[in-house]
């Protein structure tokens, strides 16, 4: 019984950790983007090239080249690691279905791009400054 309780405690702690890990990344969008919230499925569609619109308007995703926020976002909302994720985009490029999204170094570059490009949508660490952009709520 004690072992079972320990196991449940560990599982509960792990789930809390996962929730906290997800909360470390936020999704930001240019102020022209009509939506103020986005479902996980729609977010996945936008960042995997399956969709180019959100809330009735066109959106353009921007990616981080690497880093913790990048890994956390891909694991939490796409369900893939960086290698598998970019392989998916390459399949779209090599079949003539899409252009690879822009990738930039660091949260500041993402904020800069999103703030100055209509329809842009990206993700950054929650702790990074993000003035001039709107934060989308994930449903």
């Amino acid at each position: 019984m004690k072992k079972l309780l320990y196991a449940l405690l560990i599982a509960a702690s792990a789930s809390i950790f996962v929730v906290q890990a997800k909360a470390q990344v936020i999704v930001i969008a240019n102020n022209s983007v009509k939506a103020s919230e986005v479902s996980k499925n729609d977010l996945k569609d936008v960042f995997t090239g399956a969709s180019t619109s959100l809330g009735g308007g066109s959106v353009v995703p921007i990616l981080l080249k690497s880093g913790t926020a990048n890994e956390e976002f891909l694991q939490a909302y796409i369900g893939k690691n960086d290698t598998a994720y970019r392989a998916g985009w390459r399949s779209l490029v090599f079949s003539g279905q899409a252009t690879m999204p822009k990738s930039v170094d660091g949260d500041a570059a993402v904020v800069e791009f999103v703030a100055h490009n209509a329809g842009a949508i990206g993700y950054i660490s929650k702790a990074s400054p993000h003035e001039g952009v709107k934060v989308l709520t994930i449903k």
Partner: protein
Amino acid sequence: MKRLLVGALSLVLGAVTLTAQSLEDLNIQIHGYATQGFLYSTQNNIFTTNSTDGSPAWTEAVLNVGAQPIPKLRVSVQARYFLLGNFGNAITLDFASADYKANDKFGVRFGKVKTPSGLFNEIQDIDPGYIWALLPQSLYPLTSRNSQLAHYGGVVYGTLNLGTNLGKLEYRGWGGERSYPSDDGVLLSSREAGIVFPNGFSGPIFGGALHWKTPVSGLMVGASDLKQPNWNNTQLTDTIPGYGTFSGIDNSHANNVPSFFARYEKKKVMVAGEDSRYASKGSLSVPGLFSETYRNDQRRWYAMASYKLSDKLTAGVYDSQYVDHQAVLGLARYSKDWAISGRYDFSQFLYAKAEQHIIDGTALGFDTDMNLGGLKPTSKLTILKIGVSF
């Protein structure tokens, strides 16, 4: 002189900067990949290679250039160097197309475009995109890949949102002309028998596909149908040693190729399957020599599964089967291929694949000229492959 050099250098750098800015504005991207395969088989040589001795004769290199001058318009072109045994050793055009996507519900692509039939057709050449070294040959024969991959014409496509409880429906419709060059794999057996189609085969095709992304997360089910009207008066020559070369024609009757498929992909697991049938008939005549009709009824299917063992390592297995119900009884009537595969990603740019096949039957991939001692009923095939992509 120094001033002149500095001036010239400034001019060149200025032009380069200006060009770079223009390229940036056009959102021009260059991507590519290259693979090198090694084949070793027992009993029979495969794909016109000397694989029973071990053969490195499988090389591919792809260069893709794309531009997006305005958000809704993309243009892209992709060229490929392909070598497989006696096939290829040439550069071919995979596609060259312009794509206008009005919104998620409607887009159109035209030029030389990839044909979106079945589960894998439009991505069957993209080796970095999947775990397998060799896709199931029952539906995606490597030696006819370049012909079946694309057509000259157009594709309309879009995604319809069916609501939160019904998922999404992706549609594709296409039409245009498909060409099989004279050295295509489907013509290999007739070529080795002395019947050559000097201009290959070509004619109109059209079709459609539906992919339903079901409310079950990760599950897609779909169907496609590719229709081919009559392809008449294809020129051929029949060479009979000691007698000479005679001209004739082939008339291929209208046919269609239905496919039904499903894929489930979630977290570390991928499971997929496809079932297809290709039934056709036609006539072949060489005046003064012979006139005959031919039929085939190919039943083809595969089932596959893969599992991501770690971030870098993925393992998979598939069973691929083919039988032509109109073919004469014997080894060349069928093919049953069990494959077990592994892929290791060293980085997002470099990967390696290892795959073992156990093949029963000789209907797919084997020819007589490279197996002069006669084809044996079973073969084991080992494939090692390394690839880079950027």
